[in-house]
């Protein structure tokens, strides 16, 4: 579904060029859940913005469903770290924002919006304003807003990181359910090893500055997975330990000479 072929991104910063990503090659299959993990500033958000067409790579190429990405596509939806809701629009109208911008027919998609809100447990909040909702509920609204695009690909940038631990787990389990129901391809950036192991089919570990692919770890734990006691605790422990190791030892890797 997503093919990244030697993508690089160099920003022209104030004090010379900043190499954010270098030579990333990666394929994400249709319906796959790919987590991306790495230290702060290693270029995770930049990678998502490249895939979503918000940034043009300075090197390499990126394609979705065989088409080269040059601008944002309607079948690719973003979920950001903050819900980014319009405070004057009701929950329902916030969800319908993409429909309006795409000039799709509103009545048709209204039903779908209600379905999505129902599915994420927000059925009774459709007519409320965002500030009347908790942080977790607001993030659910932004998830619904992404889903109304009927996306083939969802790009999620630390979507749960601003939430408290319990809400995070709840939303992660919910996202897993949505993913298995809709079969959307998801690229999910996170700082949390636990989240990555719970959700992902594969985890891409990025190394810091310039961001390169350190390793891609397979997570072969049967679904549905949960945070609670389950039959696969040992597998979870193994995968977590491996990711931990990769993230922690990474600073001792020989750094390429920069001059």
């Amino acid at each position, binding site marked *: 579904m997503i093919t990244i072929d030697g993508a690089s991104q160099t920003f022209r910063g104030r004090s010379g060029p900043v190499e954010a990503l270098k030579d990333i090659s990666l394929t994400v299959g249709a319906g796959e859940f790919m987590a991306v993990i790495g230290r702060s500033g290693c270029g995770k958000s930049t990678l998502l913005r490249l895939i*979503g067409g*918000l940034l043009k790579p300075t090197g390499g190429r990126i394609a979705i469903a065989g088409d080269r990405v040059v*601008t*944002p596509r*309607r079948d*690719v*939806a*973003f979920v*950001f*770290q*903050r819900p*980014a809701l*319009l*405070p*004057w629009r009701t929950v329902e109208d916030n969800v319908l*924002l*993409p429909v*309006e*911008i*795409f000039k799709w027919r509103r009545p048709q998609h209204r039903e779908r919006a209600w379905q999505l809100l129902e599915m994420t447990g927000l059925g009774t909040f459709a007519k409320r*304003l965002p*500030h*009347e909702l908790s942080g977790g509920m607001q993030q659910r609204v932004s998830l619904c807003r992404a889903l109304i695009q009927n996306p083939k690909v969802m790009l999620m940038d630390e979507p749960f990181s601003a939430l408290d631990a319990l809400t995070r787990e709840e939303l992660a389990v919910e996202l897993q359910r949505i993913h298995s129901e809709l079969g959307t391809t998801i690229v999910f950036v996170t700082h949390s090893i636990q989240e990555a192991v719970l959700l992902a089919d594969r985890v891409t570990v990025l190394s810091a500055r310039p961001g390169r692919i350190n390793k891609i770890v397979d997570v072969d734990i049967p679904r549905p997975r949960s945070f609670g006691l389950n039959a696969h605790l040992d597998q979870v422990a193994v995968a977590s330990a491996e990711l931990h190791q990769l993230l922690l030892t990474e600073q001792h890797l020989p750094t390429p000479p920069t001059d």
Partner: protein
Amino acid sequence: MTDFSSGTRLARVWTNAGLPVLGVVIAVTLWWSLTVFLRIDPFYVPSPADVVESFLRTPRFLLQETWITSQRVLVGFCIAVAGGLTIAVVLAASRTVERMAMPILAAVNAIPKVALAPLLLVWMGFGDPPKIVMVVLVSFFPVVVSTMAGLSSTPADLHELARSLSASWWQTFVKVRLTWALPQVFVGLKVATPLAIIGAVIGEVVNPDHGLGSVIAGSGASNDTPLAFAALALLAAIGVLFFYVMAGIERLLVPWARAISS
């Protein structure tokens, strides 16, 4: 209705209306007692009683003049708001125009508007136009400045969202930036309302014909300080009324602003 909710409602009436009224009562009492205890000559500072008496001598005339000044304020203010919003939007739309217009705007803004009053007399003579122009001149800039500030205050994540949806410039402008700017626009409008009244009075004092400013100018010539104070009190009343109307419109149009700012 339960006791509890009627209790909170009473509390709300008290904080919204009771406290402001109490403030006014205390201020007037203070003024009154100062004039009485310090035995101030009404020629310098009249007591509230002198002012009320002066008003009651010619109430119809004073209310008429109040109405004339209010009309000038209102017309000028509406022109200033319409023009200010339009200019701010144009400047926000084009970096080039903004760069070109900014020094001129800043320069015109720096000119003391009082200094223009005699010129307006030369250009437009007597009557309403020079006063209205003065109102526009003084209340125009706060609207422009605050609207521009509002239009450029859109949070980065909303911009990113609009971009990820390939929203056109116009869609982003209408659906996101403009509404987001409204609370700031109202800050400018609330700064501009008293300025509009000041502008009208400047116009009328420099170039008297009708209106409360002319009444004040005339009372100076006839040493009638209580009359001047009555006119000032009426101006203050217009100002208060105007300000609360503005605040009311704000609550109606941007009810969400208070919720997200707290």
